[in-house]
């Protein structure tokens, strides 16, 4: 079994589809053509670069280099989480809360998977470690960003309700429960939906890729199931931690709601 290589012409044809879409969108006076094209260029450049990095990484097997790439991926994911929030915590935690949560959940789940389940030799073998971490980070990033955004927006919007509940003697946990639950629901809904639809509505990307690459379908399916479970665990634990920590930061030691610890809407 071997992969049919894609020629530059194949990619150019696919790119022309995106350009055609941008042209149509532009003709309709929608402000989407620019971001669409920029995102498409970013995809090509970023994936091209990561392809080069992976080629080097796979041939060197240098643990320090692998750790550096992993940290770089985490730093970028942390930045993405931060920039997707309309109101984020002021100071270090605006960046730190998502990054630390992703570090603990994604790295924790990835290391556990490599050491206990997949067991490549050595355990940090980049063919396994980097794609695994990439998929975990990509998904936990979305979940944590959604959860945090919903939390801070919710606390901001529901301030009268929360302060009324505090005034009636509820604790910060009780007063913020509805908002925290809503935040967790939005963090976990994407992965719940994709697990529910997997194989029936959609063929997940990783599995499709493995099958295109020549893997037997059942092997691809097993990896996909593993991945789905890991993503839901990583997203769930990460979002739980990030939401709980951020909520705690927005109340002080006297259990007062301190919305000035959020930045103004960007």
């Amino acid at each position, binding site marked *: 079994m071997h992969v049919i290589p894609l020629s530059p012409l194949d990619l150019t044809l696919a790119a022309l589809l995106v350009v055609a879409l941008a042209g149509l969108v532009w003709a309709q006076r929608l402000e989407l053509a620019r971001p669409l094209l920029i995102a498409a260029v970013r995809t090509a450049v970023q994936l091209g670069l990561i392809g080069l990095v992976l080629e080097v990484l796979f041939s060197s097997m240098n643990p320090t280099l692998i750790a550096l790439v992993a940290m770089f991926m985490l730093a970028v994911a942390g930045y993405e989480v931060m920039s997707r929030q309309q109101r984020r915590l002021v100071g270090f935690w605006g960046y730190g809360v998502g990054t630390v949560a992703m570090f603990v959940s994604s790295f924790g789940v990835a290391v556990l998977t490599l050491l206990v389940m997949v067991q490549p030799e050595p355990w940090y073998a980049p063919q396994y470690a980097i794609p695994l971490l990439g998929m975990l980070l990509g998904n936990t990033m979305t979940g944590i960003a959604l959860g945090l955004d919903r939390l801070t927006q919710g606390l901001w919007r529901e301030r*009268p*309700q929360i*302060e*009324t*509940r*505090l*005034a*009636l*003697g*509820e*604790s910060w946990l009780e007063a913020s429960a*509805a908002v925290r639950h809503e935040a967790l629901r939005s963090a976990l809904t994407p992965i719940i939906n994709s697990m529910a639809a997997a194989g029936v509505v959609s063929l997940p990307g990783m599995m499709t890729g493995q099958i295109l690459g020549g893997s037997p379908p059942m092997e691809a399916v097993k990896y996909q199931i593993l991945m789905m479970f890991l993503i839901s665990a990583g997203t769930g634990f990460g979002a739980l931690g990030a939401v709980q920590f951020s909520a705690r930061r927005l109340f*002080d030691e*006297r*259990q*007062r*709601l*301190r919305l000035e610890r959020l930045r103004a809407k960007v």
Partner: protein
Amino acid sequence: MSPSRIRATGLRSGPLGPVDIAVAAGTCLGVSGPSGSGKSLLLRALADLDPHDGEVWLDGLAQAATPPTDWRRRVTWVAAESVWWADTVGEHFRAPDQSAWADLGFAPEVAGWEIRRLSSGEKQRLGLLRALQSRPAVLLLDEPTSALDRVNTERVEALIADYRADTGAAVVWVSHDPAQLDRVADARLLLGEA
């Protein structure tokens, strides 16, 4: 002079203060002043809902030494605009006090009413009843009759007077209506005067 139920010294929060207040058991302090003079901030500081300078004591017990949930159950703030979160009135009450409900003109079946059908006046009166559930020692009332007609204003004033007499609670009552403060308050505090 009787010992004060709630006492504050050097209270300062934003444009408010520093002010000193002392309200004896069963009495009412009427607070007035122009918009922006810090009337609501005073109540929020007493309830410990905003960071503030100065010390507050309830029956000699310092605010900072009392767990915040206990403090707010004893020193309860009633906002000018009441906020509701569940669908029906009853979900916001543990065990409705039927006699207090009747005093404000509500029959027991009001518990089944939907929040979205309430008028602003009904919300305001029910908001007061909700705050009275924990039998607070100090009531902090922010314009408690702003949405009420005369009949209901009198009902609320009478209910608060009875509550003070029955429980020895102290009341801090913010109002823009001098005539109302003449009726309900034993002492007055005018904020925003240099």
